[in-house]
C-alpha cells in the first residue's frame, strides 16, 4: 500500500488516547482537519473578519471575496458549470431538506411518488417522509440484494409517470456500496423525475463530475471532507435552481422589500438567508485546495488499497465475523461495518477505545437498513487519506483482543 504521507499534516494524529496512539477510524461520521484548514479558520478571524455582501470597506470586501472564492473552488471541484449553481447550507441534511421544502412543495401533489433506497441515511428519508405526510405523496423503495448492492432489475417499473423524485446516496455510509448513480439518474431524468444524490459519502471519497452525471441536485457536507463543521453544499442545475422557490426567508436572500411584498436575489443567494457561515466556508475553500492537490483519483486509490487490506486482515481472524456490503472494491468505498458474533458493537467499540482505536457503534442513522441486515446495531470502521496500514493493524489487534476478552460469551 502506498503511503499518502499526509498524516503529519493532521495535528490531531499526535494525540494519545488512554496512552495509546490515536487510531481514528470514524471518518464516515466526520473527518479530521489538516493544519492548513485549522490555520485558515483562525487566520480568517484574526485578519479578515467582517460580514459578507454588506460593507463598502476593505474587510467586508476581503471577507466576501473569501466566501465567494470558496464557491468557485467548490464548483470546480465537482465540475459544476458555474459557481452560481453552488448553494451553501449547514450540512447535507439541510441541503436535502431544502429540496424537499422548496422544490417539493411547489411540485409534488397527492399521489405522486418519491423513490429512494433502504440504504439511505435518515437525512435522505425523513425530509421525504415529512413531505409525504404533509402532501400525501408516497415513498417507494428500490430493493437491495444480499450483497448490499441495489436490485435494479425492476427499476423501469419502479420509476413510473407518478415518480417525481428519485433520491439516493452516492455511497452507503454503512455498506460502503458505491451505487451506479449515473445509470439511475439517466432513468430518472428520462421519466421527468427530479434526480437527487446524497453525496455526503461521495464528494469526500470519489471523483465527482456533476455534468457527466447529469444529476439535477447533489448534496454534501464540508466536515466529512477535511473542512469545518457547519458548512453544507447543494449543487443544482441552473434551470432547476432558478425556478425553485426560496427556502428560508430573511436578509441576504432578498432583492427589494416593500411593506407588502419582496423580490428575491438570483440563485444561489436566493437560498442563503441570513448571515452565512462565511468563516467556515472560507476555510472549506482551503480544504478543497488540499484535496485538489492530492487529487481525488489518488484519494480513491488509497481507500481501495486500505479497505482491501482491512478486508483481508479481518478475514484472517479465526472468528465468524460478518462484514456487510459488497466485497468487490470497484463498487465499495472505505467503510467496514461488521458483526462480531456474541460481542455487542458497543462492547467492541469500548474495548477498542482502550487501545486508542476510535470506531463507531450503533445504527449509523440508518435504522431501516439495520432491520434489513437483521441487526440492531453494527460496529463500523471507516478510512480516509490519513489512515495507513498501521491503523488497520492496530484495529485488527484490538479486535482480536476484544474477541478473546468476551470470548466465552461468544462461543
Amino acid at each position, binding site marked *: 500500500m502506498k503511503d499518502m504521507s499526509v498524516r503529519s499534516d493532521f495535528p490531531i494524529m499526535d494525540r494519545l488516547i488512554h496512552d495509546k496512539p490515536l487510531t481514528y477510524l470514524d471518518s464516515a461520521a466526520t473527518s479530521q482537519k489538516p493544519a492548513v484548514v485549522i490555520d485558515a479558520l483562525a487566520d480568517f478571524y484574526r485578519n479578515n473578519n467582517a460580514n459578507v455582501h454588506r460593507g463598502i470597506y476593505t474587510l467586508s470586501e476581503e471577507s466576501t471575496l473569501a466566501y465567494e472564492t470558496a464557491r468557485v473552488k467548490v464548483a470546480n471541484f465537482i465540475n459544476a458549470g458555474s459557481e452560481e449553481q453552488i448553494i451553501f447550507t449547514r450540512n447535507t441534511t439541510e441541503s436535502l431538506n431544502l429540496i424537499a421544502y422548496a422544490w417539493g412543495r411547489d411540485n409534488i401533489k397527492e399521489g405522486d411518488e418519491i423513490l429512494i433506497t433502504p440504504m439511505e441515511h435518515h437525512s435522505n428519508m425523513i425530509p421525504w417522509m415529512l413531505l409525504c405526510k404533509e402532501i400525501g405523496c408516497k415513498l417507494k423503495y428500490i430493493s437491495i440484494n444480499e450483497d448490499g448492492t441495489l436490485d435494479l432489475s425492476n427499476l423501469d417499473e419502479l420509476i413510473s409517470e407518478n415518480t417525481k423524485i428519485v433520491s439516493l446516496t452516492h455511497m452507503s455510509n454503512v455498506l460502503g456500496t458505491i451505487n451506479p448513480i449515473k445509470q439511475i439518474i439517466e432513468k430518472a431524468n428520462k421519466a421527468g423525475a427530479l434526480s437527487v444524490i446524497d453525496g455526503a459519502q461521495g464528494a469526500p471519497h470519489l471523483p465527482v463530475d456533476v455534468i457527466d452525471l447529469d444529476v439535477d441536485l447533489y448534496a454534501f457536507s464540508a466536515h466529512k471532507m477535511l473542512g469545518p463543521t457547519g458548512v453544507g453544499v447543494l449543487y443544482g442545475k441552473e434551470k432547476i435552481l432558478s425556478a425553485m422557490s426560496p427556502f428560508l426567508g430573511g436578509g441576504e436572500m432578498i432583492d427589494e422589500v416593500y411593506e407588502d411584498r419582496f423580490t428575491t436575489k438570483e440563485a444561489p443567494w436566493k437560498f442563503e438567508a441570513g448571515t452565512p457561515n462565511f468563516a467556515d466556508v472560507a476555510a472549506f475553500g482551503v480544504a478543497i485546495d488540499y484535496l485538489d492537490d492530492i487529487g481525488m483519483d489518488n484519494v480513491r486509490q488509497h481507500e481501495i488499497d486500505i479497505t482491501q487490506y482491512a478486508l483481508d486482515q479481518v478475514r484472517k481472524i479465526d472468528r465468524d465475523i460478518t462484514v456487510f456490503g459488497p466485497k468487490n472494491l470497484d463498487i465499495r468505498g472505505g467503510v467496514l461495518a461488521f458483526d462480531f458474533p456474541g460481542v*455487542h*458493537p458497543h*462492547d467492541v467499540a469500548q474495548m477498542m477505545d482502550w487501545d486508542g482505536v476510535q470506531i463507531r457503534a*450503533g445504527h449509523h442513522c440508518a435504522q431501516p437498513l439495520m432491520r434489513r441486515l437483521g441487526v*440492531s446495531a453494527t460496529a463500523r470502521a471507516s478510512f480516509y487519506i490519513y489512515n495507513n496500514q498501521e491503523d488497520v493493524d492496530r484495529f485488527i489487534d484490538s479486535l482480536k483482543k476484544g474477541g478473546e476478552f468476551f470470548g*466465552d460469551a461468544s462461543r
Partner: protein
Amino acid sequence: MMPQDEPKFDELYRELILDHYRYPHNRGVLEKPDVDMQQHNPVCGDEIRLTAIIEDGTISQIEFMGQGCSISQASASMLTDRVTGLELTDVDALSVEFRNMLRGDDPDEQMMQDLMALQGVSKYPVRVKCAVLAWDTLQKALKLK
C-alpha cells in the same frame, strides 16, 4: 481534554458483570405474569423485557429477556437476582439509589450489594443508559400495575 482520573478498563467490565453477561440469571419469560413490560434504548437498540409475578406487594418471581451489550444484559440479570423477594416499596428505594449511583453519587453499599459492580459505569456517560435500561423497564412495569 482528558478526564481527570482515567477510568480503568476493569472498572467497567468487572468479572461479575462478565459472568452475568455470559451466564445470565433468570433469563426467560414467565407464563401468566402480573407485569410484562418491554423497553428499548433507541440510540443503540438494546432491548429488555421483564415479566414478574407479584404476591402481597412483593416480587415473588421475575425473569428477563433481551438483547444488547454486556452492560445492559448483565444489569438486567443482576436486577432479577436483587429484586426477587423484595417488597415494592423497597424496590422503589433501591431503584432510586441505583440511579443515583450511576449519576456519580456514593451509594449505600449494604443496599446495593452485588449491584456495586456496576458503579464503574458511572464514569462512562454513554453507557449509563445501558445500565439503567432494566431499571427503567422495572419502574415502568410497576407503575403501570
